[in-house]
């Protein structure tokens, strides 16, 4: 089971690119796709879900080009788009039956699967209520259930935890962990803590380009020795902020405790600390690059 993305590009207009020369190789496990808003994550997701056609490069699923033969991936795909919507007048049960039919499930299989999934996403008790009355989080759970209807080999979820309460968020993370063994899960988000717990691989996309693909450990290793904790008087914060990349601040009785990204100690009293994945992400995203101010 392998998904290979080779120099993938999407150009919307003359000077507007969604993606530029993105190359990735994905195997079974959870790939956390990180990047700031508007980085091109959703464009990449839509291309992988065969909704958007790329303008350059190729994507192959187990050796088959998905642009030329989209059905090879559509039959094994579960997709939760970022702006997931529902038919408000249908009940959760009816809506899932509808999508199960579109995915090609026969009636008995669909019924069993819907029962299981509604229990799994904790919506069993409201299965006969119309979706129009559901909260944002409940609708998102319906979205998660529909993505899993056909027991997908390739599961693409775009900002899946948006609108979920903390308990449901943890529940979803655990679910992804359980699912990841025998399939490829691509989890797009800008919330680092979502991928921290489950991702076996990370890819960071910025301005339509892939900055880096590596394991979380490799990201942490690359940032090791570049994260500092530094206690400064509160009044010095604006000046320090303008000189250094600060990933966190904590107010203490003695002043402000900062987490600073820097190659060398930012000042007297600064001590090196273990980087978190958030530090590593911010380091990759905000690293000064040639041509950018």
């Amino acid at each position, binding site marked *: 089971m392998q998904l290979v993305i080779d120099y993938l590009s999407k150009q*919307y207009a003359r000077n507007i690119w969604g993606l530029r020369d993105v190359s990735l190789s994905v195997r079974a496990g959870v790939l956390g796709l990180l990047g700031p808003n508007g980085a091109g994550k959703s464009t990449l997701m839509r291309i992988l879900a065969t*909704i958007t056609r790329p303008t350059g490069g190729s994507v192959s699923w187990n050796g088959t080009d998905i642009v030329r033969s989209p059905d090879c991936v559509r039959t094994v795909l579960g997709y939760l*788009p970022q702006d997931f919507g529902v*038919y408000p*007048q249908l009940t959760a049960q009816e809506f899932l039956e509808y999508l199960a*039919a579109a995915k*090609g499930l026969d009636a008995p299989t669909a019924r069993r699967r819907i029962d299981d999934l509604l229990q799994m996403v904790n919506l069993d008790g409201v299965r006969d209520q119309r979706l129009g009355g559901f909260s944002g989080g409940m609708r998102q759970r319906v979205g998660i259930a529909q993505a899993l209807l056909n027991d997908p080999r390739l599961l693409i979820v775009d900002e899946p935890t948006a609108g979920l309460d903390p308990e449901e968020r943890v529940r979803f993370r655990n679910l992804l962990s359980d699912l990841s063994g025998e399939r490829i899960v691509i989890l797009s988000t800008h919330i680092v803590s979502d991928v921290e717990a489950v991702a076996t691989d990370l890819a960071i996309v910025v301005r339509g380009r892939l900055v880096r693909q590596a394991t979380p450990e490799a990201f942490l290793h690359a940032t090791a020795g570049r994260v500092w904790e530094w206690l400064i008087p509160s009044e010095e914060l604006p000046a320090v902020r303008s000189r250094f990349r600060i990933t966190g601040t904590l107010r203490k009785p003695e002043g402000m405790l900062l987490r600073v990204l820097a190659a060398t100690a930012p000042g007297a009293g600064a001590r090196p600390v273990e980087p978190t994945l958030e530090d590593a992400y911010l380091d990759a995203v905000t690293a000064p690059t040639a041509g950018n101010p």
Partner: protein
Amino acid sequence: MSACRTLFNLIRADVLERTRRRSFLVIVAATLLLGYLVVNGTIGLHLGRYRGVMNATWIGLMMALCGTTFVSLFGFYAVKNAVARDRQTGVGQVLAGTPIGKVPYLAAKALSNFLVLAVVIALLALAAILLLLIRREAGTVDVQALLPPFLFLALPAMFFTAALAVFFESMPGLRGGLGNIAFFFLWIFLLILPLATRSLWTDVTGVRLAMDRLQTDIRALAPDYDGHFTLGIENGAPHDKIPLRWRGMDWTARDIGWRLLPLGWVVALIACAALVFDRFDVKAPRREESARRLGRWAGSGNGLLKPPDLALRLLAVVLDRTRFGRMLLAELRLMLQALPWWWHAVALTLWVFTLSRIRRTAGPHSSHASACGRCFSGRRWERGKFASGPGRCFSPAPGRWCGNCPRCGPRVRWWPVPWFRA
């Protein structure tokens, strides 16, 4: 897993979603109003000096033709939202990632449109039965004689309308307001074309076929019949016309074949729609586009983590009330920006033409002769006074403000009336 089951579930979900909405009640209400207008004789089928005797065959044909003509217009606008809803809700993106093809998807949408329109036609059929019970002049309540026009005239026309709505939704330039305007002219064209060309090939509504058969039958009954055929608002009291007992259409295999022709158009329309349908692909998501245009910040060094060099000043004023003027301006801006500039240009041009029309219509009324016919209020003016109740129409343009009698003369000079008339 059969394709039929997929199709059935797609149609079922779509029909449930539509019929459970409150807006569906508006469609039902509009249908009932149309049925009522036919029942009370406001709208009908007119043959010059002649009219049909109110029996099952005549009422069936009359109601079915009203359905095929008027429901094909407002029905189009009522159902032209099936694909748009999937686009707006995001359900389309999920469907685009499933193995379902463009043709089955669009066929399901067309069938779902058709079912909604078929419900409307069924309501009209019920209204026809009601009309038969109330105004029957001859024969029995023969449902078998009443229903064939609905089956062979109205339903194929509805199928065509349903597929046309899907085609318009699939065609990039016809999805929005331009498509709505284009359809109105297309609707007029489709009604006129078979009448002008005397061809049944383009007769999607079935009016030409019904007219041909009816005119032949009426000529056999009344040799001096001049071929007059009007479907619309009553022109003259029915009791002034000579009733003819029409025995109804013999639906031959050839006639039914002609009525199956719109189904061929339906197949062609869905095939064309599938060719141009984008399967919910987006040309350029606005959010990403704007982010790219605005976005020097992404990947721009430590700028991301730096706060902007801007300090918000404290507000010196007390926010004690809403600024109505500013709210109004903001609402106006929202309203104007919702449509492209050319739409406003066309609207303005039409408005200016309307004003010039007011001058031409409102002006001469004051100098008209004092003789008055039946005015818009439905009352007869008799030398300075109004008499309630039904009266004979003397006006060459009934159903309008005559502009000459004391009642409606001042109203015509009141500018909104000619404005609306224009």
